[in-house]
């Protein structure tokens, strides 16, 4: 605790209180939406208009501006979900539990988008919609893990118990994350190796790289927006008998 500066600690302590979280995210939301729209517009303009066509794949490579960020997000959100779940499990912070479960549907959607765009791209490029190679299979398993988390949460009536169950499941499923990430390096399959996250020099031209990174950032913001909206609804649902919710509703009338 000594390593973390005091204002940061205070910020997190205050964010753990439901009324403060609710009010704060309400004020934050317009900013997030504006940043998201700007980033998406810039990323799509750069990716679809400014970036040159690929010498081999022509224009069909442009699907990476959706596919690659979605695939990154599918892993990122799972890790966020597992970490939030672990925090909820250890310190019993209600908001961490809510963030964990609110992340699951968003992550499942991104995984689904990554799979669908990948197969749309695979048809003209590989000549097949689907191959059972390591990365595709592990990404599909990730989708099933997300669906398992959502299903388990829905099946348990007491939502605090459900959050703990989901956190345990999410932590067990984390084993899959490194397998997906390194699958293209460990197994030599149809899916190409990484082109962006190489340490020395990315093997992608800078005019194609910048829009890709912009899109990746914009997807992060989209995740924040979608997750926080879900979290706010979930919070209201769980706290429907609390004083601050009553006060807020009376105030708005």
């Amino acid at each position, binding site marked *: 605790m000594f390593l973390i500066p005091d204002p940061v600690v205070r910020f997190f302590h205050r964010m753990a209180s439901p009324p403060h979280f609710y009010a704060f995210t309400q004020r934050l939301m317009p900013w997030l939406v504006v940043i998201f729209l700007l980033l998406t517009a810039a990323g799509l303009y750069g990716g679809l208009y400014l970036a040159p066509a690929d010498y081999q794949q022509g224009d069909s490579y442009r699907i990476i501006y959706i596919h690659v960020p979605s695939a990154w997000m599918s892993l990122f959100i799972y890790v966020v979900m597992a970490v939030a779940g672990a925090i909820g499990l250890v310190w019993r912070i209600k908001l961490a539990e809510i963030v964990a479960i609110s992340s699951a549907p968003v992550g499942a959607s991104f995984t689904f988008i990554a799979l669908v765009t990948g197969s749309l791209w695979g048809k003209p490029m590989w000549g097949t919609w689907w191959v059972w190679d390591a990365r595709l299979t592990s990404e599909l398993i990730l989708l*099933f893990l997300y669906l*398992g988390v959502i299903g388990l949460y829905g099946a*348990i009536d007491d939502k605090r118990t459900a959050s703990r169950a989901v956190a345990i499941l999410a932590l067990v499923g984390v084993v899959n994350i490194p397998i997906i990430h390194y699958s293209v390096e460990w197994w030599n399959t149809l899916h190409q190796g990484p082109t962006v996250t190489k340490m020395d020099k990315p093997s992608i031209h800078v005019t194609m790289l910048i829009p890709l990174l912009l899109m990746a950032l914009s997807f992060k913001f989209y995740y924040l927006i979608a997750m926080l909206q879900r979290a706010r609804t979930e919070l209201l649902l769980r706290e429907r008998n609390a004083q601050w919710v009553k006060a807020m509703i009376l105030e708005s009338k």
Partner: protein
Amino acid sequence: MSLSHAFFAVIRRDLVLALRRRSEIANPLLFFILVITLFPLGIGAQPHLLQAIAPGIIWVSALLAAMLSLDSLFRSDFDDGSLEQILLSPHPTSVLVLAKIIAHWLVTGLPLLIVAPLLAVFLGMPNHSLGILLLTLLLGTPVLSLIGAIGVALTVGLRRGGMILSLLVLPLYVPVLIFAGNAVQMAGSGLPVDAQINILIAILLMALVLAPMPTAAALKMSIN
């Protein structure tokens, strides 16, 4: 009572209970045999095709049999309250849970190994891959019990946990299926399978060490 005493007492108790209710041993085994019999009937009598997919058929059937047998792991203890006694005992829950999982594997996993060679011969698998098939089943089915225990501990308190259990457990079974199926396939064509066997051993050791802890945590959650 020392920890090792408690550990073996739990194993002994579960084995005695299983021997008194023999259907618990017979059901997964019959299911395993029946599912494998369905494949030749569904595909038709095509020896070459059957021979080619035999490792996959046997392993998928073993997976389903293991999954269906999971429910008996904690169900009766949950219903009659002995699970709470296990959680209340002074010994670490994860060790006692490991004892229960081992007993469960001896009752439901081990019999699969005994009939598997017979079924492999039915499907026309080459004789030299039988040993590898048995080895993968010996290494793989305990992992199925260990991972399945996490799922069943999460859902034991639910009234309709059956469907959700398959959604939780099957994705986690996939690595075992991939490496075991691949090993048997490779052995059939006379290729070395050391890598796959080593990975299966690694998965088994990891599961032995890591799986009882989330299972114990999930049981505590399901009880209250």
